[in-house]
């Protein structure tokens, strides 16, 4: 009841309308590996009713499905699960078409073509072409360089122009000035028959810079905001019950405190409210991340955004939309996202220092040559060579190259980076904050006292429970075994909302549910055991069932590992205290807090941050979203809610907690490599600038220096390549050779 509606809605919201009532949805399927998976997924999905087409992209491990809006929403995720694949919907922001990247790649291709061909001509000149041939080659170079610079240079010219118009400057200003002056000077020198022209330098400069720029763009955070996803959770309106008994559907803005609302089973409470009439279970996972549904009856308060699951409820609104829980969350997210943007990326910090230094250097070179040599042409040539040789090619590659290598490595392990800057931040993290439900646990309740419950009773209870979709019922049905002695038809089972299930088998009335409802005969009751379901026979207690949220398999070892690495590990949960405390001791977390509302989680995080700690927040629920956004860096499992995934910097798709130490280690490694790259780029400039300043740079030296420095940075970044994949491949190959050898030996004998 709850799961399908929520999932269906998510499919509708997660899809993008294309044309004629067709919708396109994008699903992430981390488990796909081979041709077999491709055809299985594509065939399996396209046979579903309502699906028009399904196309797998193996590189991104996604499948894009076009479905017909007029039909019933196809159960895509269930179908994929049935095929044996874990799947979740990619949010709309994650897959936005990246036109800027395509533009950069086109520019890069053209620049590469120009640089290569001009370099080919330049080699002829350097090799000592005759005067006539040299002039010809220079003119040809100019003819290639002009369209290439015009096409590929736009990226830099446009950005420089914007900066200049705003009366400021950025890294693109010296680049644009340098490229433009180089071309103009070379054209003048070619026309006047001078021996040196720098067309090759101008184009290869653009080529290297565009490589850096393209990689940087890949790693830049998309403008993904979790806020819009959060807004989708709020229903558009609700049915309002007027005093005269008439009903009216009002938009959420028009709902005022005091109005009577009718909330059907399967829909969300539009605003904070108090139950007036009705008895139901509500799913409050949005508010506190707690997995088990909460029972509410008349007089109980309900937060806006919670989902009514079993029976219709009449409730009195206690707040308007603006003061409701969801609106509060959205405000918190806005504040938190603003705070994170204060982080300055390493590359940006360097470019801030770099730009004025280069401008000044070129200007000083120009003035001093003009003053001491009195040769305008020479002075311009030296100033230009300073601009070219200091071009931030190596610097522009230093950070993004490493980030791309790190992202590739993490993607193989199943971790997606949504923001390259987060990789820089993650390397500094010293405190790890975990959410409990759904992050350290599986988020699904499991029967805890299976052994002392009695197998026969359990089988009967399980058979009855299989007619309900309540999470506890599912857990019971899963724990029991199908027994042929229990014959049960659907019409023998009745579900009483908020109480439980009742079934009549062979004249005996069984009840499964809340203790005070199921057990009518006087018996001692444990008042404190809330998350307990009892099974009764003719009103007499048969068994008590307790449920537990299972820890994820790797939770204990991962936390141990993190503790050993001197991380301060903390658990902040919205769950009740006894559950959190017993869980904490089981997985080995010494610091924890329970009963936290989203705002309190954020408060904890800002307090820890203020005390100088750098936090990594790992969480999955809607209630964690503000905390994820507020933390220095954040991770979410792939099974997290849309909102959780949107607010996190990293998403680990296979829900394996081991990815957390792996990602941190990768981030630290990346930071080391970035530092080395930057140090090298600076060292290179320190050597090259004096040479340029003295006017000793010829086109050959400029080309060599530029290519060599960029190459060193790229090669250094490739050191990331010594990763696990290659080692396992080598091992596989060795094993294969061994088995082949054994086979041949067997054959010869």
């Amino acid at each position: 009841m709850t799961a399908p509606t929520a999932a269906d809605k998510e499919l509708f919201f997660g899809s993008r309308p294309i044309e004629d009532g067709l919708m396109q949805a994008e699903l992430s399927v981390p488990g796909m590996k081979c041709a077999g998976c491709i055809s299985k997924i594509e065939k399996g999905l396209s046979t579903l009713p309502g699906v028009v087409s399904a196309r797998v992209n193996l590189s991104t491990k996604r499948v894009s499905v076009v479905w017909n809006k007029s039909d019933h929403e196809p159960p895509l995720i269930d179908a994929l699960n049935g095929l044996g694949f874990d799947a979740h919907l990619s949010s709309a922001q994650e897959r936005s078409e990246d036109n800027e990247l395509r533009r950069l790649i086109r520019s890069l291709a053209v620049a590469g073509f120009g640089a290569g061909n001009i370099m080919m001509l330049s080699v002829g000149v350097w090799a000592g072409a005759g005067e006539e041939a040299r002039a010809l080659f220079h003119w040809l170079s100019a003819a290639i360089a002009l369209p290439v610079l015009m096409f590929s240079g736009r990226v830099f010219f446009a950005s420089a122009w914007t900066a200049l118009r705003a009366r400021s400057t950025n890294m693109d200003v010296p680049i644009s000035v340098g490229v433009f002056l180089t071309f103009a000077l070379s054209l003048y020198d070619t026309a006047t028959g001078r021996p040196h022209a720098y067309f090759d330098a101008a184009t290869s400069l653009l080529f290297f810079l565009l490589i850096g720029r393209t990689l940087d763009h890949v790693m830049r955070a998309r403008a993904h905001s979790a806020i819009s996803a959060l807004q989708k959770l709020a229903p558009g309106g609700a049915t309002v019950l007027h005093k005269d008994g008439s009903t009216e559907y009002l938009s959420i803005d028009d709902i005022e405190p005091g109005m009577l609302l009718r909330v059907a089973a399967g829909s969300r409470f539009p605003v904070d409210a108090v139950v007036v009439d009705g008895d139901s279970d509500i799913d409050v996972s949005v508010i506190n991340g707690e997995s088990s549904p909460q029972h509410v009856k008349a007089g109980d308060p309900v937060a806006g955004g919670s989902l009514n699951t079993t029976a219709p409820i009449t409730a009195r609104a206690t707040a308007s939309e603006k003061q409701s829980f969801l609106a509060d969350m959205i405000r918190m997210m806005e504040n938190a996202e603003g705070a994170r943007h204060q982080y300055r990326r390493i590359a940006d910090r360097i470019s801030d220092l770099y730009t004025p230094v280069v401008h000044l250097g070129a200007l000083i070179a120009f003035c001093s040559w003009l003053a001491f040599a009195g040769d305008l042409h020479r002075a311009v040539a030296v100033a230009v060579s300073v601009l070219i040789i200091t071009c931030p090619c190596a610097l522009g590659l230093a950070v993004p190259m490493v980030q791309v290598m790190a992202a590739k490595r993490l993607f193989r392990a199943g971790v997606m980076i949504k923001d390259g800057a987060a990789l820089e931040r993650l390397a500094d993290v010293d405190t790890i904050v975990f959410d409990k439900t759904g992050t350290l646990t599986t988020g699904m309740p499991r029967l805890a006292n299976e052994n002392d419950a009695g197998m026969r009773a359990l089988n009967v209870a399980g058979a009855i429970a299989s007619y309900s979709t309540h999470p506890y019922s599912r857990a019971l049905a899963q724990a029991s075994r199908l027994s042929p002695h229990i014959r049960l038809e659907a019409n023998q089972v009745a579900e009483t909302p908020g109480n439980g299930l009742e079934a009549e088998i062979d004249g005996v009335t069984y009840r499964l549910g809340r203790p005070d409802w199921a057990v009518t005969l006087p018996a001692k009751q444990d008042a404190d055991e809330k998350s307990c379901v009892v099974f009764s026979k003719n009103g007499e207690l048969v068994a008590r069932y307790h449920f537990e949220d299972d820890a994820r398999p790797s939770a204990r070892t991962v936390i141990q590992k993190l503790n050993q690495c001197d991380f301060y590990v903390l658990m902040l949960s919205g769950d009740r205290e006894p559950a959190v405390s017993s869980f904490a001791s089981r997985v080995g977390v010494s610091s924890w807090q329970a009963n936290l509302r989203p705002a309190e989680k954020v408060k904890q995080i800002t307090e820890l941050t203020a005390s100088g700690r750098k936090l990594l927040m790992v969480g999955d629920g809607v209630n964690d979203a503000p905390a994820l956004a507020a933390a220095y860096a954040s991770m979410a499992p792939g099974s997290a809610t849309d909102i959780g995934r949107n607010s996190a910097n990293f998403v680990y798709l296979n829900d394996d907690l081991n990815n957390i130490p792996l990602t941190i280690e990768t981030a630290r490694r990346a930071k080391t490599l970035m530092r080395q790259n930057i140090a090298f780029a600076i060292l290179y400039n320190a050597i090259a600038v004096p040479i340029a300043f003295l006017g000793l740079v010829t086109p050959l030296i400029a080309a060599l220096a530029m290519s060599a420095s960029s190459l060193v940075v790229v090669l250094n970044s490739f050191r990331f390549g010594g990763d696990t994949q290659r080692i396992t491949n080598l091992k596989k190959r060795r094993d294969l050779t061994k088995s082949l050898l054994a086979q041949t030996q067997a054959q010869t004998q």
Partner: protein
Amino acid sequence: MSVMVLLVLVSISMGAVGLAVFLWSFNARQYDDMDGAAERILIDDDED
């Protein structure tokens, strides 16, 4: 000399053709799923 001009022009136009082919295939989204393209050749399409 004139032979050289011819050769240079030929080589540059060959490069230009290569660039044009790349831009065409890029715009036709042939590079969107490199891993998938490598695996799809193994799929039997008998039914279709």
